[in-house]
């Protein structure tokens, strides 16, 4: 298997040339190839947005659902069949506005899925409005005088929620992005990756050129140290850490649930109702 075996040969990506999403497509397909996961055992679920078109370009099982609702969908897939590798992929508007509560609670439950967000600080598909991660002062269609709302901090949010794997990557550094993706998929539990992914069409301020000199690789940080991770989560501006902030082992929801722990639901026998079952109503 090589990365191209994970791509849909009929449908080429429709993103603008230079869009950060291309890097994520490469990273996901390279990571799956490296991990030798059979495409039949992969589900990539998405919401709505430029980024969320991802599953259309893949030769895995895919589901392009509703804006903001990809995470509960992905959890449903995982709970139905825990043998599958489940990746939820969507935008920052999708995940940090409409889907915030799902993100929080699914992370808290430690459902064993990988959630990757293409964070371009704008709504790409709907032609460039300010997203929850838009920096103060960003001029967009909906903030002509500059954004005045404090940006959402995805890393701190994921840590607060109880995600057991929290990372940031950058579309301008595909090899690193791929490495992080491999680790996220391998991690047992809820893995979150916030990918700084420039929108070359609607966000000229936060471009590759802007981010390239600012990002630096996290090295030698103790990924089991929550306080350190939390502190790093607030580092932004001239120095932007990318890499794994936090990674710990904790039982997944599937490990703990009294029904799911007996194995993939899809393989468990359906109960045949008998006369004896009715006796409890006597």
């Amino acid at each position, binding site marked *: 298997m090589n990365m191209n075996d994970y791509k*849909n040969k*009929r*449908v080429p990506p*429709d993103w603008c040339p230079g869009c950060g999403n291309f890097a994520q497509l490469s990273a996901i397909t390279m990571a799956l190839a490296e991990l030798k996961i059979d*495409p*039949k*055992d*992969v*589900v990539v*679920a998405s919401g*709505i947005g430029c980024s969320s*078109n991802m*599953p*259309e370009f*893949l*030769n*895995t*099982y*895919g*589901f*392009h*659902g*509703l804006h903001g*609702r990809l995470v*509960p*969908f*992905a*959890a*449903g*897939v*995982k*709970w*139905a*069949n825990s*043998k*599958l590798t489940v990746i939820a992929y969507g935008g920052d508007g999708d995940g940090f506005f409409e889907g915030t*509560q*799902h993100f*929080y*609670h699914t992370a808290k439950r430690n459902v064993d899925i990988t959630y990757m967000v293409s964070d371009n600080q704008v709504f790409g598909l709907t032609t460039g409005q300010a997203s929850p991660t838009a920096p103060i002062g960003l001029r967009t269609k909906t903030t002509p005088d500059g954004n005045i709302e404090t940006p959402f901090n995805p890393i701190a949010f994921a840590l607060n929620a109880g995600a057991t794997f929290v990372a940031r990557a950058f579309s301008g550094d595909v090899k690193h992005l791929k490495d992080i993706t491999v680790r996220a998929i391998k991690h047992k539990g809820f893995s979150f990756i916030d990918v700084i992914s420039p929108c070359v069409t609607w966000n000229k301020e936060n471009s590759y050129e802007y981010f390239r000199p600012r990002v630096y690789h996290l090295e030698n940080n103790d990924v089991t140290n929550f306080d350190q991770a939390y502190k790093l989560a607030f580092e932004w501006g001239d120095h932007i850490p990318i890499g794994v902030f936090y990674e710990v082992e904790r039982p997944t929801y599937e490990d703990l*649930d*009294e*029904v*799911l722990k*007996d194995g993939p*639901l*899809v393989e*468990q*026998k*359906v*109960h045949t*109702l*008998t*006369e004896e079952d*009715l006796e409890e*109503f*006597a």
Partner: protein
Amino acid sequence: MTIMRQNEVIIRVAGAAGDGVQSAGEILVRTFARSGLYATSYNYYQDIIRGGESWYQVRASDVKVKNQGDGLDILVALNQDGVERHTNPDINEGGASPLGKDGIAIFDNSIKGYTKRDTNYCPMPLADIAAKYSKNTLLKNTVGLGAAIAASGIDFNIFADVIRDQFGKKGDIAELNVKAAKEGYDYFLANYKPLGKKFKFGKKKYMISGGMAVALGAVAGGLKMYVAYPMTPASSALHFLAQHAKKYGVFVKIPEDEISAINTVIGANYAGVRAMTGSSGGGFALMTEAVGLSGMTEVPLVIYEAQRPGPSTGLPTKTEQGDLNQVLGASQGDFPRIVFAPGDIEEAFYLTREAMNIAEKYQTPVFIMSDLYLAEHYDTIDSFDLNFTIDHGLRAKDNEQDYKRYLITETGISPRAIPGQPGNMHNEDSDEHNEYGDVVSDAVTNPQDRIRMMQKRMRKMDTYIEEMKPTPTYHIEDAEYVIIQWGSTKGAVEEAVDILRSKGIKIGAIEVKNVFPLNPDIGTLLKNKKKIIAVENNYSGQLSKYISAQFLVKPDLITKYDGEAFYPNALADEIEVRIGKKKEVIRE
């Protein structure tokens, strides 16, 4: 006019919320069921945990009882208010008539001043007897129930066993209760005369609520996952499933909201597991967008929608059928959907079970619409026919050549592939797509693909209509007048038909079990009738309007939107007025 039958008894337990009215009522239903009688019940309560007025009515007979009935034989009043409300002929509690002549009122003898009315007032030392056994004041309910069992002529030993089961492992407490009940039983017989009911006791029955029947039907239909956010009156199904999760191998989860619930079960169904969600109108409103997602991606989905009166939070502990417009209109665009409305406990079981197959066969959302009355009242059944085959519908073979998830077919049904299946990788999309599932909405917009896909999906409805079973009818053959009914009004409507037929009026009813799509045979059933009357537990006659539009008929409309179910005698009176056989009834 209320017809009292020798082989029927109606008992009402009345008190304040928190007095244990409901559990007392349930003990009665179970006692009747085990005695080999049919019973049904009605729980009148308010949305407060403690203090508000509450009563529970049980109607039992040796023939099937269709609803709670509007008469009353025995009242067990747990407080003064209960005696007053249910024996004062000027008070009509939500349509339920007060205790009349010859009726028996059992209450504690500390409640004074009840001698004058034309009722058999039977004050008893309920509290004193209870105090002999326990400090727990709820024990006086059990003493009162013992007296009611004596008054209705039921075997005390069966009642005693029900109490023992109720207390389960707490054996000592159970025995105290049995002894107290026996004293109440004996005291009544020593001091008052029983009603002299004559029952033909049959085989023991099972006692089950509508919500439980929906849950059990789903399990029988292969349910493996139920994800729902609590909301009355849908929660009885959720609670039942949560308590039986391990036994039936059903994964049950309360997520962060209803939007999560429905998207989660769509994910599970997509991955090949039968999963279901449920809510009431408010919670269902939040699910709206995802209903269309199931329609568009053709992922099977069963939704249990248990109605309560709206708008908004409405009357959370009351009944109504006001969500039909919402269910029919949920989500943008046209897509196939199928809506069932069970009329009683048995139909709740069978239709939910069937819905599980239908959803997978047609790969589209299927609804079970119920309401508080059906979901929360206990009823009895002889048994369920447990013969059933799970049918997963059209599935793709492994490694299909040139697999098309949305293959254009004559039936509209395309072969499904499930993640994990070799070779059939594809994308399912909420955007319009072609046969492969590849998106055709933006860059490669193709009107032909769009039109063919719309037609393919909608063709599933034609296919379904062909397999629909005939609309159930009641005394329709020679009927000059016909009633249209859907959902839980079935019992009251059928009994109203019985009452009117006993007066020589040729009337019948049709039950609209398939509220969407409508069975074309309804048009024929409504032909050449002197009058068509729709009976609905809502304000505007939601089903009636929709039937009028489809079959070009003009039904007269009888509605009720006070939060209570229909009562058969009151309904029969109203029907008589509408067909011109009776002057308007003045009711306060």
